């Protein structure tokens, strides 16, 4: 063990003393390739049948561009909305005892457990003009169902658990001593939160944002019920992909999928790098 440790210390400056790097990385890469990378490579393979010109024409048509704007825009907005409300829920659930806490905790996973179609139906039933909430909003001139705002609502719903569930474990494991120390030194709760708690949970919060965004950008089932699906206005890219498939155009469908995939990968990589940097800084 000593030998391994010394050896890896020379190679990885900080990671030396723990074993299992090689096997765990190997297994991770193998499983990742079998389940994700090789199947995803099929997208590239089929899209390449189009040829570059047809590919560019397909993905840069006004309809396609509008749908990409809607898909990515709504997913980012929804993930941004989910950050504060997810943090609030996670904070309250893991910090404050109050009646019904367990129930709220249990309900957090509802959006994941509910089949997306059911979620879409339930949300549409809530926010449509004759729905439980929609009937109060309609007289105020607020229409949420069958507009782009409906897409955001659906995506906030499906993304919420991701923020809560990534922040929650970190909040539960956080050392209370630091917060208590800060407060005993005269810091207000808000100061303690901003200076002590927030830096610790920021990486997890950002992870939650990334996951909520990722979940939202490709979402189909719940969105099509509430979006209205009007071309150029509320038509999401996954719906356009389905449209291509309905014409037996696998190449066109995979071309759009490829653009979504690359876009999501770039955005996620950005968020994850930021997260790694935050986590690194937090540990210093």
């Amino acid at each position, binding site marked *: 063990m000593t030998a391994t440790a010394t050896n890896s210390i020379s190679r990885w400056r900080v990671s030396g003393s723990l074993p299992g790097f090689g096997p765990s990385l190997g297994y991770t890469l193998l499983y990742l390739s079998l*389940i994700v990378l090789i199947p*995803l490579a099929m997208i590239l393979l089929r899209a390449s049948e189009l040829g570059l010109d047809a590919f560019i024409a397909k993905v840069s048509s006004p309809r396609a561009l509008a749908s990409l704007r809607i898909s990515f825009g709504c997913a980012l907005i929804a993930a941004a909305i989910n950050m504060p409300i997810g943090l*609030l829920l996670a904070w309250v659930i893991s910090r404050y005892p109050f009646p019904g806490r367990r129930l709220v905790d249990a309900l957090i996973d509802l959006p994941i457990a509910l089949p997306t*179609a059911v979620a879409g139906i339930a949300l549409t039933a809530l926010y449509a003009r004759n729905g439980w909430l929609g009937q109060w909003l309609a007289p105020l001139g607020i229409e949420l169902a069958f507009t782009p705002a409906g897409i955001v609502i659906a995506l906030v719903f499906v993304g919420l658990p991701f923020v809560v569930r990534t922040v929650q474990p970190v909040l539960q494991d956080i050392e209370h001593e630091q917060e208590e120390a800060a407060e005993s030194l005269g810091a207000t709760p808000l100061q303690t939160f901003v200076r002590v708690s927030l830096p610790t949970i920021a990486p997890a919060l950002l992870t939650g944002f990334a996951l909520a965004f*990722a979940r939202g950008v490709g979402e189909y089932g719940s969105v099509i019920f509430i979006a209205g699906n009007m071309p150029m206005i509320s038509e999401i890219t996954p719906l356009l992909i389905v449209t291509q498939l309905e014409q037996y155009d696998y190449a066109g469908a995979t071309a759009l999928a490829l653009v979504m995939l690359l876009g999501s990968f770039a955005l996620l990589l950005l968020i994850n790098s930021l997260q790694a940097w935050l986590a690194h800084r937090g540990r210093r």
Partner: protein
Amino acid sequence: MIGPDRRYRIARSALILGALSVAGLFLVLPLLIVLSGAIAKGWSLYLASISEPDALAALRLTLTVTAIAVPLNLVFGVVAAWCIAKFEFPGRSALITLIDLPLAVSPVISGLIYVLLFGAQGLLGPWLGEAGFRVIFAVPGIVLATIFVTFPFVARELIPVMQAQGRDHEEAALSLGASGWQTFWRVTLPNIKWGLLYGVILCNARAMGEFGAVSVVSGHIRGKTNTLPLHVEILYNEYQHTAAFAVASLLVLLALLTLVAKTWVEARAHRDRHPDPIVQPDEELP
């Protein structure tokens, strides 16, 4: 001294109130829609809807698929989180992003890629077909699609938790002579058990609730390759809204079962207050 204390209490109540209203708006109301829809025509119809043979076959298939997909992703999640959170190596963020990727892939596509790979016109499909092996429109395809869509959950839950904890505890255990496995079972695992639990709960819930990807690879054969979410859609498309909501409520119930399990584990953790046998009295340490 009373001033700040009271202000703290008010702030706390405000936060709880805020959380409750958010939960009410985004979680309780949709659930109420489902539940009120499920029992809109009485309990007897509710029970009939969930005990109908097609519903039971769908339930059995959903449980089977979940029982295969979740443990596989659980093992992967722990292993991946170990290598990503405990070590620093070039390309780590890219690896995390690749793990996230299945989440961002539209469900339509996550089903389609397996069709392109294993379907009759696919890359491996004709060859597998001759070998008499059916992947797509059978249980293996549904399992694969489910593993794909639930792929990131456990790993992504664990990575931040492990990162927040750092390496100190493991290094200490190793320096005290524990083997790698001992360190993992006795030090790492207890430390990450909450993250692990949430990961499994999420993974489990999504595996049971996944609709889009499974819909592409299932073939929708009634009583054979229909999972519960697919059955819900069929019922809804049949205008049997009550039955659709009833079966959907069954899925909610199944997800809540995992949370009951979590509560049980929590309760046990409370009871097992005695210190771990690993730790010898402090005075023995130099």
